[in-house]
């Protein structure tokens, strides 16, 4: 990051290689829409580019980038909430988004559905720590809360996931 701040384009390539797929995975999980996730990825990197002079030396880069991505997502969601629905070119309303499959066929599907059923705060805490790979302290910073709160959310989220998945594993 510091070489990028110093103006080395090759350092940006290294940074991009290191961060892009993790951020894309995180944004895709938040948006569940590849086009929106790619838009947000571009916004995130543009914000990082603009803020590179303000990057405080010594700050860990991944949580910093994840926090910017999360804030970009929240801003976009807030803006979308007050925006009226766009009509398509022929004047009709857009097609509704496809729903998640109702009946899971495999464990991974069941997990995906169970994760989506969790309250947002639990899901975010689990995704940041279990999937994105941040430490509890880093996840607490990203979520703007305490480490204890993150541990509590992960624990409660796990309990709910366990219940959901037990019902999936139980033979019919």
């Amino acid at each position, binding site marked *: 990051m510091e070489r990028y701040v110093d103006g080395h384009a090759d350092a940006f390539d290294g940074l991009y290689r290191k961060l892009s797929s993790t951020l894309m995975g995180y944004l895709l999980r938040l948006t569940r829409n590849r086009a929106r996730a790619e838009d947000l990825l*571009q916004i995130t*990197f543009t914000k990082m580019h*603009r803020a590179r*002079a303000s990057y405080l030396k010594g700050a*860990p880069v991944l949580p910093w980038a994840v926090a910017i991505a999360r804030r970009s997502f929240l801003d976009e969601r807030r803006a979308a909430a007050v925006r009226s629905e766009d009509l398509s070119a022929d004047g009709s309303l857009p097609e509704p988004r496809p729903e998640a499959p109702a009946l899971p066929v495999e464990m991974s599907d069941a997990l995906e559905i169970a994760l989506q059923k969790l309250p947002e705060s639990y899901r975010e805490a689990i995704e940041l720590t279990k999937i994105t790979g941040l430490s509890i302290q880093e996840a607490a*910073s990203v979520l703007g809360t305490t480490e204890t709160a993150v541990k509590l959310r992960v624990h409660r989220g796990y309990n709910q996931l*366990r219940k959901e998945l037990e019902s999936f594993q139980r033979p019919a």
Partner: protein
Amino acid sequence: MTQKDPLADLPWPGATVTPSETCSKAIRGVCTKSLCAQRGISATGRALLTLGLSMLLLVYYTYYAVAEHRPSAVMRTALLGAMGWLGAQALLVFVTLVRPPGKRGSRALRLGMLLSVPLLFIAYLGLVSTEHFDIAKFAHGYPAGHALGCGLIALFLGALIAGGALVAWRRTDPYNPGLSGAMIGMVAGLASGSGMSVACSSHETFHSCIAHGAIVFVLSLAGFGLGRRLLAP
């Protein structure tokens, strides 16, 4: 017989997804176009700038007090107090803003400071005030009008300091910009409130607590709102 924990070997979804080539190309284009070294001032530099603004305000208030021939004994006490609060501001800035985001004091600590420091400041103003009016006497006529005028001036000068400091710390905190903004607002409020005690002709308890003390809360609140816009990258 123990039941198998269904979370033990879960097929967690992959953390990484490769973005499309078009997307990567667009990002590289924006982020490497005419890329040059852009090293901003360090966190310590920003902190010193913030404290420098506070100091400048205190110098202005002191100059005003001297020009207006305020009683020297009262002015000296207020000036010593203001210097003490400048030290407190330095402590607040270095503990809650200078360290990289994510390594600063915990959120609970910062929230606690946001509530307790203004209360301590108001208590200090109450203690050092040399006059005390009855509330009815204060609320009617000149004392209330004077407090309003004094409060507005302190608020305006504090807002200038807060604005300057927010610009100095711009885009440095993606984690909790509102809280950092509130800390900056509180520091500016302390600078203006304690400085105003040096320059003000009134050392009455209600006047000090309301006109010089309450602005710390107002500026903290304003800092919270502005920080969310200015301090997030």
